[in-house]
């Protein structure tokens, strides 16, 4: 995966002001800055359901632009947007579960992802994250798609930083087990005691 664009907090206020006025240019800036990450989070959270991820992404930006005039900017634009993303993902999963009689969705890889030259390891990582429980999955996606801090993730998920830390800890434990064969050989050797001396 390529380098991820980093949010520019110092300009968020200007962009947000434009969104409040309904300025399409400002809206476009927000879309360009966040669309890829929102869509990626939705796609991974919904385990590769392309149509649902597109719906969620559209729903997120429509909500953001409609609610911008009343947004009080107590949290940053990004945190607010991720909170809406998280809620939209959770709602979508809930709706789909109802339709699927409480079953989870099958794991499918997104067409553009599979076409983007995934190596075997990437596919395994995607699959391992997809097997996490929805709560753990969302925390991992927010953490690793936009480098959000525990506090920012907590605001997005409406929970405490301690809860975030706990979820990430559990997710890391599961992923470490599932992805052990992909981790650096040296580290693994140290952990399993195969290295006699450093």
């Amino acid at each position: 995966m390529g380098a991820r664009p980093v949010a520019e907090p110092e300009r968020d206020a200007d962009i947000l002001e434009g969104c409040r006025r309904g300025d399409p240019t400002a809206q476009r800036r927000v879309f360009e800055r966040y669309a890829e990450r929102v869509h990626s989070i939705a796609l991974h959270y919904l385990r590769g359901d392309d149509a649902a991820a597109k719906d969620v992404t559209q729903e997120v930006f429509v909500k953001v632009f409609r609610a911008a005039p009343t947004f009080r900017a107590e949290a940053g634009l990004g945190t607010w947007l991720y909170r809406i993303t998280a809620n939209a993902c959770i709602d979508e999963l809930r709706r789909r579960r109802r339709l699927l009689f409480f079953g989870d969705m099958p794991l499918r890889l997104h067409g553009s992802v599979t076409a983007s030259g995934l190596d075997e390891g990437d596919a395994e990582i995607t699959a391992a994250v997809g097997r996490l429980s929805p709560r753990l999955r969302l925390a991992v996606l927010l953490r690793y798609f936009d480098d959000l801090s525990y506090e920012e993730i907590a605001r997005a998920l409406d929970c405490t930083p301690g809860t975030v830390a706990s979820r990430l800890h559990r997710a890391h434990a599961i992923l470490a087990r599932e992805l052990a064969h992909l981790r650096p050989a040296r580290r693994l050797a140290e952990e399993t005691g195969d290295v006699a001396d450093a």
Partner: protein
Amino acid sequence: MSPTHDPHDLEPLLRRLPVAPAPASLWNDIQAELRAPDRRGTLTVLRRPLRSPLIAAAAILFAIVGGAAAGILRSFAAPSRWAVEPLAGMPAVAGDALAAEGALAMGEWLVTDSVSRARLTVGKLGTADIGPGSRVRLDRGGLTAHRLTVERGSLDAVIEAPPRLFFVRTPAVLATDLGCAYTLEVDSTGATTIHVTAGWVELGEGDVVSLVPAGHGAHVEPGGHPGTPYPEELAPDARAALQRFDAGSGDPADLDLVLAAQYTPSHDITLRRRSAVTLWHLLQRVTPDGRARVFEQLAALSPPPPGATREGILALDRRMLERWRADLSPMWSEEAQPWPHRIARRLWNLVIR
């Protein structure tokens, strides 16, 4: 040494999660949506028109089930005052002699002397006749739970209602009505003896309970296990031996006595049924050596069903014991129930438990 999960080690891997660019058409879709009248909440519904009828159907079903449940709960609601009428002599309610029909309020005691008797109306469930020399209190029980405490004396209950609505606590045990008629006697030490004449009564609470079917009795000492059910015709010395197992002091000679008193496969099903009740309960109250003997005798009456093994039963595997009990239950029950009743009963048990 087990692998640790250093997040710094995982980080490079997780940063390889593939990014999925948003479709180029999405921007135009969003703008079109923003230009359209605000239809918050309808976006996804319109995309999937099937959802609306499903949601409507679910709402209607929920209303019907909720309404029915509310109606059922209302009809079985526990009153805060129970009607009481004297059947003989002059019973007392809250210290006042009762000459005519009155009411027993929450927390009040109904006391009968050596010649008086009284009848309590148990909401819409049935009646409980209180015998001479009794001391009975009405307890708070929640929305549908009808609760009495019998400190001493006797109670003769006839309940026609779904299970787990009528509870009687004595110094020795909690008796839960499972839709039945029974007589319960509490002596001056609190020891409780129950005789079930119809349906079932559950004795005890928590992990160890006894299920006493019609035609059986059970005896419980304060602080002891819920009594092992026994057929009413069981010899007194075998009953005494069972009580020693309930108290944890039964020995091999007691087991000889109990096993010798049981019916065998040569008897007809009605008699075999009676022994199966006792033997199944006894499995959990004897030593491992004795358990093997009880198992053999019970298996001769009715072998364990698939999924319940000898080893599992001897190890008191809870699921296997329950499986065997479920398999034996039709043999215990004299009342064949049509399948709609069985389903309704199971649903009720699920809800009320």
